[in-house]
């Protein structure tokens, strides 16, 4: 039962928390970071072990100790999800992620107003809570640039200050300068995908990734070993928070990291300010940190859960929840897959960084005319590996072609042929927010600390979402056939559970009545409480969220250091 005092406490030292720890520490603020999991090192990731890291998910939350439950709608009972796709150690998801690092499109920040202007208000589904962001791409551009250069992202510009460049993403928003590192090396799947999509008139390019294509900042280049998504990097070439911002935070002398710390409450007083947090230590002790500023940077489940668990007489609906919006507008990408198998060539898909390797952006956002297609926004379409991981166990969990059984002689022969001759395409479809897709506290299921599990109520199978998935499936089949594959087939769609990347729960906005935080992640109700991460996204885009989370963290750090500190407790 320890009590400590500090300037700032950061709960969750991952994609956003690591950046804030370093930036605030550099500015002379005393920071304590709480992390539920351990702090591991690059050496810890030397064992290339698919069973441990992919199949048994060693870098992700233990689903028995830390259950998250899901139900498709409010009339059904929620059951624990069998798999969770966020991190559970210092560095958070950036340790095991595929490191895909996008800037969102300009239109992604104004999806509602843009849709209405081009297609009319009726194009937005009646029950969707689609909203514009309270900031524009231009507001965030310098922070995207900062993140790309400080962390180390490999890619090729497609829009340099308005000039379109072939070979980069010509649909991207204008950038002030090129990426700090050239694109990662081509592999066979990318070669096939690029040729086919160019033939079809699309614009393929190497997906920008937080993986070093050349040595950078004393870290070595990628070795293309293939043990990438689901694994930590054994040479430190993946630009995870663990090897980028954590050493910076350590070097400030102002940062103290506490691992094995399960935050269970944000404490507040009768004046409406937060005073710090309570956390359980690994020995079960209940400890307190008193802080002037509390920053929540956990995965979206816990950002919502902590606010709901921290209710008081003054905040009877949970902390920072006078709007009633906490937990609402949960979003996740669906990841429909199409597989392509070749008779006459090898692809050796297990080589190289394993997630979305090369991409077309032609059918994302409003990059194409949506008239008559039955949905708005879209999806990136990428080539890579099934499950975003190219090992053999992963391969046995993907759908075999129609007519091929899942076991026996025919299946054995399919595996023997397909493992080195098959590629996967994935469409990362943007799903719209709906206010009844939400996170709350499970009334029955508790975690290992006795806290109610986060409960998700979510079903992506709505008309807009189904039409979007079907459209993208057809595009992927077209690309697969154009690649010259002998067989092209769809993976069956799963149940309505959320797919990859989660957004929402503590939505940002410009109106305290309809949002939880402002553009800086500052609570409207409790100005010395910040919530930063994809939980604040009002819409999700068809792009992976991490670089935008990181740009927002840089922007918030800038605002806290240079403005908030001058008048603590005031709204920015």
């Amino acid at each position, binding site marked *: 039962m320890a009590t400590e005092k500090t300037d700032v406490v950061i709960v969750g030292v991952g994609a956003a928390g690591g950046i804030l720890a370093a930036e605030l520490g550099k500015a002379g603020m005393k920071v304590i970071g709480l992390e539920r999991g351990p702090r591991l090192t690059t050496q810890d990731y030397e064992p290339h*072990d698919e069973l441990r890291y992919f199949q048994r998910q060693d870098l992700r939350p233990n689903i028995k100790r830390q259950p998250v439950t899901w139900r498709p709608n409010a009339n059904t009972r929620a059951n624990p999800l069998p798999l969770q796709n966020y991190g559970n150690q210092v560095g958070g998801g950036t340790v095991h992620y595929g490191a895909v690092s996008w800037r969102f499109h300009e239109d992604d920040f104004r999806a509602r107003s843009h849709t209405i202007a081009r297609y009319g208000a009726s194009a937005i589904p009646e029950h969707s809570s689609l909203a514009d962001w309270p900031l524009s791409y231009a507001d965030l551009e310098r922070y995207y640039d900062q993140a790309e250069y400080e962390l180390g992202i490999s890619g090729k510009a497609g829009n340099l200050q308005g000039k379109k460049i072939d070979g980069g993403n010509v649909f991207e928003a204008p950038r002030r300068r090129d990426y700090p590192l050239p694109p990662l090396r081509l592999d*066979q799947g990318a070669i096939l995908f690029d040729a086919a999509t160019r033939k079809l008139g699309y614009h393929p390019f190497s997906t920008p990734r937080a993986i070093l294509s050349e040595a950078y900042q004393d870290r070595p280049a990628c070795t293309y070993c293939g043990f990438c998504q689901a694994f930590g990097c054994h040479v430190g070439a993946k630009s995870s928070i663990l090897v980028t911002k954590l050493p910076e935070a350590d070097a400030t002398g102002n940062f103290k990291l506490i691992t094995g710390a399960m935050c269970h409450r944000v404490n507040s007083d009768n004046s409406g300010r937060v005073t710090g947090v309570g956390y359980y230590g690994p020995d079960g002790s209940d400890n307190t940190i008193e802080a002037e500023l509390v920053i929540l940077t956990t995965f979206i489940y816990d950002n919502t859960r902590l606010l709901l668990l921290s209710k008081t007489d003054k905040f009877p609906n949970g902390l920072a929840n006078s709007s009633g919006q906490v937990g609402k507008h949960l979003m996740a990408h669906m990841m429909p897959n199409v597989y392509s198998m070749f008779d006459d060539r*090898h692809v050796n898909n297990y080589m190289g960084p394993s997630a979305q390797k090369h991409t077309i952006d032609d059918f994302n956002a409003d990059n194409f005319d949506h008239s008559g297609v039955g949905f708005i926004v879209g999806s990136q379409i990428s080539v890579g590996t099934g499950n975003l991981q190219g090992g*053999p166990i992963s*391969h046995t969990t993907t759908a075999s072609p129609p007519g091929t059984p899942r076991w026996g002689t025919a299946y054995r022969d399919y*595996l023997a042929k397909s*493992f*080195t001759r098959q590629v996967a395409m994935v469409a990362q479809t943007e799903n719209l927010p709906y206010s009844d897709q939400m996170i709350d506290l499970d009334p029955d299921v508790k975690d290992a600390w006795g806290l109610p599990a986060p409960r998700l109520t979510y079903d992506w199978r709505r008309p807009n979402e189904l039409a979007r998935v079907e459209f993208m499936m057809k595009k992927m089949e077209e690309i697969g056939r154009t690649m010259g594959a002998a067989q092209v087939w769809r993976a069956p769609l799963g149940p309505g559970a959320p797919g990859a990347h989660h957004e929402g729960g503590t939505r940002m906005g410009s109106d305290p009545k309809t949002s939880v935080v402002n553009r800086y992640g500052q609570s409207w109700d409790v100005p010395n409480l910040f919530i930063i991460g994809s939980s604040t996204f009002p819409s999700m885009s068809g792009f992976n969220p991490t670089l935008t989370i990181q740009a927002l963290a840089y922007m918030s750090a800038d605002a806290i250091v240079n403005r908030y500190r001058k008048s603590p407790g005031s709204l920015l």
Partner: protein
Amino acid sequence: MTKHDEARRAFLVGAAVGAGAVAGATLVPNALAQTQEAPRTTGTVPPPAHSHAGGPGLGAFFNSEDAATVAAFTERLMPGAPGKPGARDADVLNYIDLALAGAYADLQYFYRRGLASLDAYCRKTYREPFRRLSAGQQDEVITALEQGKASEFSWPSAVAFFNTVRTHTMEGMFADPIYGGNKEFAGWRLIGFPGAQVEFTAADMQSSGPFTRLPIVGLKAKAS
């Protein structure tokens, strides 16, 4: 290899061959011969997770009859053939046996109940336990499980039992040999996976042919 390891191997191989004598007699000798041609390496067979004093005839978890059943079942899921190593060649039984004594200990009751239901169904339908059925009959039984048509199952359901054994069979085929299966990289050889290579070169990635550079690399073992 220690004496204990040999005894353990003898038990598990014995169980596998015993089952195979009925389940796939013509396939087994060829398949075994195929993998025995591979160079011997040290360290591919890990020490057992638990010590016991029983000697040959005991695994870390399964009794000898259940071991024979699991050996037969997994071999039907991934049958061996000349040049195509199967579950028996990869020692999938050893993988599952060790896993149930360790990482998957919470599935012990699931397996006990599932195996009992399986034999009850087989006795009712064929008057023999699963391990004594012909390969064709075993395939009929597995199909019935997969389709949820096998009676005598309650918990676990037939489908859940099938799915779990299938998943564990694939793990035993393709996980690193340190976990007790994928013996001498049998699974990785079957599909052409070179294992935990530290690096692939630009030339490797430019090639549309098979990757053939040796050795295959595992956590504790290499093999050419």
